[in-house]
């Protein structure tokens, strides 16, 4: 399939990426709007020598991923918002036991059962913890089918590199949308991949070595704190090295839009129209939601240029909190968002942008 362009949905592209990345274990439980991904994994694992399990619950699925990862293979599960809530216990254990894993959340609207329409309202849950304890996930937010493919492959590498869970955070639009996909040759060089997938800590049977233990329980005074500090040290390295973002007409922007995932695509359309109207609008699109791309915001806070900032989300304002922290109160930060299945249109963004510019020039 290499070098061929195919038309594929975001859900299936993530599944194919997992296969290309060498994922040999997938467990999942049906939930809309990510079912195509589960079905795709059933098909592809059957074609190869991988393992596919339709679990009895999302809780069981994430714990199967824990087990497969503990046994040393690349493992993935996927779900959508209510199912991801159920997985939080397992994600905390995976983080605590320092296991690599990839978890896909194709977000739908909540709270509760909500509905199956797209949403970005799990940002807090993904980036601030979700489960119990002081842990982090690397959260990757693709905005196209191609990027969903590429970043899922990268996600497996990051999970192994830092021995921590990685979440691919998409929304129902991205999961369902079909776009051309160029199959790129797999992620890392084979030598690097070999390094990443060599896991001397994995459970393989203790032949020729002392026993390995996969655990997150530290009862002796001071031991848990020591383990937690090691995690924190690792998180600092991730924050320093792994920030990703896209800039779009940012340098001369008078109005800086901030959006991620599907919302960023709509924002780009709005920016083109605004530019045609002579308004210097630009975009920062965070690709890593954790670590939050502080570096690009630091560029803004260091400049003396007058700017306004508009955060656009499919939520009632979650990422905006990180934007405000990153901007250190140096800019006026406005918000546009809908949740519950509604998505702000290009026209909504243009209208809001024009209102901000008008108010500022009065």
């Amino acid at each position, binding site marked *: 399939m290499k070098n061929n362009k195919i038309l594929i949905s975001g859900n299936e592209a993530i599944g194919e990426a997992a296969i290309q990345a060498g994922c*040999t*274990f997938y*467990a999942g439980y049906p939930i809309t709007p990510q079912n195509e991904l589960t079905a795709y994994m059933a098909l592809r694992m059957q074609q190869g020598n991988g*393992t596919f*399990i339709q*679990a*009895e*619950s999302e*809780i*069981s*699925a994430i*714990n*199967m*991923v*824990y*087990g*497969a990862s*503990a*046994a*040393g*293979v690349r*493992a993935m599960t996927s779900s959508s918002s209510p199912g991801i809530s159920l997985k939080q*216990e*397992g994600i905390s*254990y995976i983080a605590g*036991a320092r296991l690599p894993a990839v978890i896909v959340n194709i977000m739908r609207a909540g709270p509760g059962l909500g509905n199956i329409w797209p949403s970005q309202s799990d940002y807090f849950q993904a980036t601030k913890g979700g489960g119990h304890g002081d842990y982090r996930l690397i959260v990757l937010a693709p905005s196209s089918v191609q990027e969903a493919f590429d970043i899922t492959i990268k996600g497996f590498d990051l999970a192994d590199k830092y021995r921590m869970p990685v979440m691919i955070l998409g929304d129902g639009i991205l999961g369902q949308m079909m776009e051309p996909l160029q199959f790129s040759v797999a992620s890392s060089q084979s030598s690097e991949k070999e390094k990443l997938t060599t896991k001397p800590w994995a*459970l*393989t*049977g*203790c*032949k*020729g070595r002392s*026993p*390995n*233990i*996969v*655990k*997150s*329980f530290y*009862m002796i005074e001071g031991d848990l704190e020591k383990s937690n500090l090691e995690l924190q040290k690792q998180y600092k390295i991730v924050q320093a090295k792994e920030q990703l973002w896209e800039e779009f007409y940012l340098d001369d922007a008078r109005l800086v839009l901030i959006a991620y995932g599907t919302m960023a695509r709509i924002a780009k359309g709005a920016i083109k129209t605004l530019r045609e109207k002579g308004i210097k609008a630009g975009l920062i699109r965070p690709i890593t939601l954790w670590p939050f791309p502080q570096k690009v915001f630091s560029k803004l806070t260091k400049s003396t240029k007058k700017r306004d900032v508009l955060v656009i989300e499919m939520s009632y304002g979650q990422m905006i909190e990180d934007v405000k922290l990153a901007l250190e109160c140096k800019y006026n930060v406005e918000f546009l968002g809908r949740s519950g299945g509604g998505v702000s249109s290009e026209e909504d963004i243009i209208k809001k942008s024009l209102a901000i510019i008008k108010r500022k020039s009065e």
Partner: protein
Amino acid sequence: MNKIFFRPETLRDVPTHYCAGCGHGIAHRLVARAIDELGIREKVIGVAPVGCAVIAYNYWDFDCSEAAHGRALAVATAIKRVRKDNIVFTYQGDGDLTAIGTNETIHAANRGENLTVIFINNAIYGMTGGQMAPTTLVGQKTATTLKGRNPEFEGYPLKISEMLAQLNGVKYIERVSLHSPLEVIKAQAAVKLAFENQINGVGFSMVEILSPCPTYWGLSAKDALAWIKEVMVKEFPLGKIK
């Protein structure tokens, strides 16, 4: 002279944290000896529960994983599926296997996972301070059933072994007890068979072990054994269930 009783090689020579008269020490030894006798130490991967036996891996000398409370059989399922040549078992208590993990238990069994399950039934939650378990007997006093388990409000002891025996995926279930040396010898044979089944690809095999918890039964170590013999086995009859 033939030495017939000794510490198994895979049971580390360290003090355990268990209370005096607790059955976990014996049950750990039964697992270790079965593994030694079958010569599978280097292939074994154990899954420890949440409960009193959470640090069982400190006493066994082979690869182990913890699992979240109740999730041992989900974790073990995945380990076995990706490492078919390894011998994978879970060691779980009654709270873990029959309350919070009932779903994982039933479905791993129903899928017929080729796993070995060592199920410790002491009719109580030990680690958290003696609360009612699904297996607590009617009338048994616990921290949460002060006047004794009342079926009107708390239902009846859950017989998961009999329930699982109904499933096509389950190949072997036996209930044994630790209340006398003779019963321990029978328990040893059952534990060994449950591992042998996995080696031979037979399928899901579980041994339910009735095990004393003198601390939360409020009995001496000796009286706890007598209570199993005289009371507990009436609710949980011993022998091969499937």
